[in-house]
């Protein structure tokens, strides 16, 4: 009894494999013999059931499920679009500290470029012609040397 074959061994013997000892046991043991018969019967029955026309699934629409499925898909798409939009926001919408960091540099740059050079007032004079403005600029000592004829002897630079 305790030497009876395992299901795996029994199946192997039925498949035409198994050791000599297993086959000899099967020939002697009544219990294992009946197990083999049952296994053979089961396999035959399974083969017959599965050989016959399989059960045809009949389409029965479930009123509740299809809209739910499409709604879930739409929600996923909308969430994806929102996520993508949030990631691609314009630079102005970025947090204030980023702008605050860059503001002093920009102010300094603007101060250097538009310093008290008379250039702004020349451009701002509405009653003078362009040529008058240029003449005024050339007479002014504070105009950087780059704007005057000749070279920059005193190494004055704009920036």
């Amino acid at each position: 009894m305790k030497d009876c074959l395992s299901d795996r061994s029994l199946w192997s013997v039925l498949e035409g494999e198994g050791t000599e000892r297993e086959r000899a046991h099967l020939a002697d043991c009544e219990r294992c013999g009946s197990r083999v018969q049952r296994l053979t019967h089961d396999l035959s029955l399974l083969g017959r059931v599965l050989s016959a026309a399989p059960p045809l699934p009949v389409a029965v629409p479930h009123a509740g499920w299809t809209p739910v499925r499409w709604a879930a898909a739409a929600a996923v798409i909308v969430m994806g679009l929102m996520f993508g939009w949030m990631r691609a926001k314009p630079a102005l919408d970025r947090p204030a500290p980023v702008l605050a960091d860059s503001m002093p540099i920009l102010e300094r740059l603007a101060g250097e470029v538009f310093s008290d050079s008379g250039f702004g007032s020349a451009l701002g004079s509405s009653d003078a012609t362009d040529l008058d403005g240029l003449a005024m600029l050339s007479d002014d000592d504070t105009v950087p040397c780059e704007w005057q004829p000749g070279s920059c002897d005193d190494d004055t630079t704009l920036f």
Partner: protein
Amino acid sequence: MCALEGGRLRLVAARKSYEDLDNAQRPRVERLCRLLLADPAEAQDVAQEVLMKLFQAQETRPETTSWDRWVMRVTVNACRDRRRSAWWRRFRSDDSVLREDDLISPVAGPEDAAIAGEVRRRVWAAFRGLSRRQQEVFALRHVEDLSTAKVAEALGMSQGSAKRHLFRAVHRLRLALRGAS
């Protein structure tokens, strides 16, 4: 005129040849497709594809004599392809349920009719619950009656692997047969 006649003769011969092949192979191919695909309409589609492939292969390689294993292999692969691309169709399709009436085959013999509908339902449900490999191995071994070695060859796996899958499939199907969960 002769060329036209010759072309027509070839067409008729090809049609005849395809009909013979269809009659000989369709039941087997369709049965395997129905086992491996849950949807019978899809099974018919795939069976048609396989038969066309077989016909073309026979035209190009008439020297081959044994097509059985080729057919099994191509059928299994076609079913795999179909199952891979089935998720979108399943998403779009309506839910379907199994009706008890459909579990009895319309062409069942007396012996088949004796098998209770409940047993059929359990076995089919268990078969659908098997892994893809287990389904393929069991279908080829115990429905198509191929040897384990041929099953392994048709599925491109080792014999040991085929046996492992087969044993697990048999175990689970037998449990279903006895009504165990």
